[in-house]
């Protein structure tokens, strides 16, 4: 490794900032974007990601160790020293040089240290809601509002039925009228696609509104 490094004219690693496709690659400079999919445990995040992803959803793991204990809220599991975080994600090639990644958030609260990573640079988030368990998604919504990340709420229709009206849910969750609430079926590709389109539109509007201010 060292011999390879010394033969490289650029010198030590840290001297080079992350440049867009330095000099080597003649091919396309592929760009990536990401959208976060949040919601409570078992609300259908992975199904949602999988219905539109061109790959089977993959799982990333990050080991949380004692070293991170000071930064992470371990109050829920005081005896846990190390644990493994699972985060599902999928990939959608939107163009020859544009890839969209969909990241499902880790459901457990103690993994919030990963959420910063997830949210940074994201276009926005889809918060999936099971209307029988509204409270499960409050933490996610709080987080996105705190970070000013545009989000839409997707009411996932279990068994193909919507149990509640959209406006009732909005009132029950006291969601700002500017935030779109849509109904979706995470198993249907078209439905997932429409939810993502709604999110990107909402994010663009939010951006333009912020720019106008």
């Amino acid at each position, binding site marked *: *490794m060292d*011999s*390879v*490094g010394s033969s*490289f004219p*650029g010198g*030590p*690693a*840290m001297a*080079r900032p*992350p*440049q*867009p*496709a*330095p000099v*080597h*690659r003649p091919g396309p*400079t*592929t*760009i*990536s*974007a*990401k959208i976060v999919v949040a919601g409570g445990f078992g609300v259908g995040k992975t199904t949602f990601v999988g219905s*539109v992803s061109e790959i089977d959803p*993959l*799982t*990333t*793991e*990050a*080991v949380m160790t004692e*070293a991170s204990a000071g930064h992470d809220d371990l109050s829920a599991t005081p005896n846990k020293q190390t644990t493994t975080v699972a*985060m599902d*994600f999928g*990939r*959608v090639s*939107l*163009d020859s040089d*544009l*890839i*969209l*990644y969909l*990241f499902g958030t880790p459901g457990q609260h103690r993994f919030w240290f990963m959420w910063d*990573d*997830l949210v*940074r*640079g*994201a*276009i926005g988030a889809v918060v999936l809601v099971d209307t029988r368990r509204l409270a499960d998604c409050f933490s996610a919504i709080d987080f996105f509002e705190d970070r000013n990340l545009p989000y839409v709420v997707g009411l996932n229709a279990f068994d193909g039925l919507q149990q509640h009206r959209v406006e009732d849910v909005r009132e029950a969750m006291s969601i700002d009228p500017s935030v779109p609430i849509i109904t979706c079926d995470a198993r249907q*590709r078209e439905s997932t*696609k429409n939810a*993502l*389109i709604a999110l*990107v*539109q909402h*994010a*663009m509007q939010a*951006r*333009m509104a912020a720019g106008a201010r």
Partner: protein
Amino acid sequence: MTSGPDDASQRPQEPTFADVMNGFSLDAKRPRRRKRWGRRRDEDEQGRFDQAPPTPPPFPAAPGAPPSGADASFAGSGYGTYETGPIEPIRDEMLVAPAAGAAAVRPYAWTRGRTKANFDLAIETLVSTSPQGREQLGLLQMEHRSVADLCDQPRSVAEIAALLAIPLGVARVLLGDMAGLGVVTVHQTASSTGTEPDLALMERVLSGLRRL
């Protein structure tokens, strides 16, 4: 009597070829000897000496396996002492290390203990093997090579971590190293230019989604 391995090395004096061969073929009849090696893994089985452990002895030709006659005499005389006295303390010491390292190579051994990457790599940042990396594929260290193989087409940091079954942090450090060496190219992300994706890119994502 001293430790097990010492004892094993003291016992034989210049085994003949035939002795060694006997050692192979008669192994199955001497569960006790196997036990001595096998117990590192099967500590619970220490009481059941009659039962051969499922794993073969790591060293089949262990220091000159004695012929069956000598072995039988050993079994008669020395065996009890093995079981009770001197063996126990060794067992505990020997168990500590293998138990701790039993899982696999520790993830951060890949990174020589470093947890910070030299590059700012988001989880969705695309990485692809550079032409230089392809030329030097044979020269790369093993970990870098497996990454370079994967990144023949652009892949995200998260994909690399998932496909290689390594933690995200490890993938970041590895990729940071490789980017520093010029082996891989780090692509732009939506947020490379600032903290938030720009409108033009969002527009492209939107039209891309509509085309799906």
